């Protein structure tokens, strides 16, 4: 059969090139981007974390907002983590696939710098005035939406005497019974907390904290509990672990008290998720209206009471019972370990690398 490979290749190349062009155009017009339909109703696309966070946030923040603003519809696009948000926004810089995006405050400065996020207009987001200090992040860019903190989790069925201090992780009672998922933000936060306990400035030197973790390594059952640290503690696969407080509190309720999160007496490090306006959003005004509502005292109280995140609005007062279980508790506020996340962004990767290589991989 007379096949001319060269002609074949050329035509294939041309065709695929053409297809590629059309597909790019297609993907750019398809999703996201604050489209207004004929009725004048505007859709604002919100990228937020999946799972219980989505359930709670939809119920306590999005639905009340939509009730109050019938002309705006919030579309929730669930994402796994901040890296996924970054990837999606990078891939759709000109015609973004979202108008608002949640992002861990350790990642957000990168997105700000790359121009993926836009500065907010203080006139459109008056609630910025009411933010607590911790939630005031990079000047002009998205503020904190949730305040969480690193906790010690333990299984109350298997552990008689509750751990109260970070030092208790080194207690020989828990040798071989520890889950330490610290090859990520949790490890970074733990390094800061340990440096604080060891009396070292984490901006100067984290060697002592790394050294301290190395001592812990032989007693660690798993560095990567599956499916996650909360269920591992609940099932008794491990007795003690480190994890985020808000989800720990959620699991305490759902496990009837088997999983117990402890905010250690030395204090802990806050983790902040920021809410950001995506650059080039065609619905920037509506998006900022929603951001303003999300950080309002009303929304912060509703969401905090439901999901155990400490409020970013100084006027939001959680139920006393709930407040005790968040970093908003007075006891915790006093001992909060300060972190400059925009500084930390530049060290984050290096620290995670050191944890992986010097603590886990050794």
């Amino acid at each position: 059969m007379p096949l001319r490979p060269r002609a074949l290749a050329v035509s294939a190349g041309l065709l695929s090139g053409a297809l590629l062009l059309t597909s790019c155009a297609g993907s750019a017009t398809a999703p996201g981007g604050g489209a207004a339909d004929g009725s004048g109703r505007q859709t604002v696309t919100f990228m937020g974390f999946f799972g219980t966070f989505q359930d709670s946030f939809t119920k306590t923040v999005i639905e009340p907002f939509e009730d109050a603003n019938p002309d705006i519809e919030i579309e929730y696009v669930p994402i796994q983590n901040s890296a996924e948000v970054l990837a999606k926004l990078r891939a759709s810089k000109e015609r973004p696939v979202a108008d608002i995006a949640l992002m861990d405050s350790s990642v957000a400065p990168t997105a700000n710098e790359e121009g993926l996020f836009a500065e907010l207009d203080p006139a459109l987001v008056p609630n910025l005035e009411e933010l607590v200090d911790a939630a005031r992040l990079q000047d002009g860019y998205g503020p904190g939406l949730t305040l969480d903190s690193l906790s010690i989790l333990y299984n109350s069925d298997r552990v008689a005497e509750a751990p109260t201090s970070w030092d208790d992780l080194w207690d020989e009672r828990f040798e071989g019974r520890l889950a330490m998922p610290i090859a990520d933000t949790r490890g970074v936060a733990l390094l800061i907390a340990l440096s604080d306990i060891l009396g070292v400035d984490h901006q100067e030197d984290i060697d002592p904290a790394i050294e301290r973790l190395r001592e812990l390594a032989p007693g660690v059952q798993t560095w990567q509990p599956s499916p996650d640290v909360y269920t591992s503690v609940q099932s008794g696969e491990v007795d003690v672990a480190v994890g985020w407080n808000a989800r720990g509190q959620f699991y305490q309720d759902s496990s009837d008290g088997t999983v117990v999160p402890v905010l250690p007496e030395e204090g802990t490090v806050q983790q902040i998720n920021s809410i950001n306006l995506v650059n080039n959003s065609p619905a920037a005004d509506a998006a900022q209206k929603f951001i303003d509502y999300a950080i309002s005292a009303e929304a912060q109280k509703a969401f905090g009471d439901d999901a155990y995140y400490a409020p970013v609005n100084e006027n939001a007062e959680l139920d006393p019972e709930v407040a005790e279980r968040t970093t908003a508790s007075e006891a915790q506020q006093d001992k909060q370990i300060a972190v400059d996340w925009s500084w930390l962004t530049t060290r984050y990767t290096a620290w995670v690398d050191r944890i992986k290589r010097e603590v886990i991989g050794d």
Partner: protein
Amino acid sequence: MSAAAPGTETGSDTGSTTAPGAERPAPGRWTPGRTAAALLLPGLVALLLTYAMPLVWVARMAFNEPLPGGAIRQTLTLGTFADVLTDGHYWRVIWQTVELGALVTVFTLLLSYPLALFLARTTTRWRGLLIALAVTPLLISSVARTFGWMAILGNQGVVNKTLQSVGIIDTPLQLANNLTGVVIASTEIYMPFAILVMISGFGRLDPELERAAASLGAGRLAVLRRVVLPLTLPGVLTAGLLVFVLSLSGYVTPRLIGGGRVFVLATEIYDEAITALNWPVAAVLSMLLLVLFGLVIVVYTRLQRFVERRILGERGAAS
């Protein structure tokens, strides 16, 4: 990993729309060659879009420069390659990837071979059912099966609980959250693939040859060693290649049951891309994995040729 997603999505979206365009008759003579070309085009284009394009994208990313905090500087540098290749950590990761692949391949082949041999040789009318049974695990996602293995191998798992209650051990054996657990679970997960490949690769096996060998004085072991094994070797090799390659790129099992201790290329690529946001390094590691695949294929081809020439071909009495 997620970095490749956009490309993949657009590829699959548009792949289906190529067919009508490709089949449109062109002016002029319609030769068989052009028909063949037209028939090939949709597949070629789909392959290009879903496979080649993302690969090119990843390859391009490997030459960018990572900045602290996950930012990327568009440039053309071999710096990331140099950083990775001079970093002992990544060599350890590559070594552990190969080590895991080798262990899993050996155990999978050892356990699958007798089963495949039985299934290929049996004349029972339940043969079809038995083969179906051997591959049913494929119907369950490897995630679910890995979790199953965690329930079996964990400190609170069936094995440890049983051994403890019987009094054989006091403290639980570390069967999960380490390389042991990954090897055990991966072996089970890849066995159906190995069995399927072996059965279909055992075509040269003819029961009459075994009878001929027996009639010539060969006992069971001699028949296995001198007749069955050489004739099934190509199938075993192909199964080995498949399992090794699957294992090299395996992510789920090392991640879920490795306890964060088992660093292999797939998990490392994910961590670099997702946790460290270091896309260029993730891309470089992806390229290294590709190189590894290439090496494996080269070794496989050599081995296959060796087997065909030296074991299946020229082996004689006096040699």
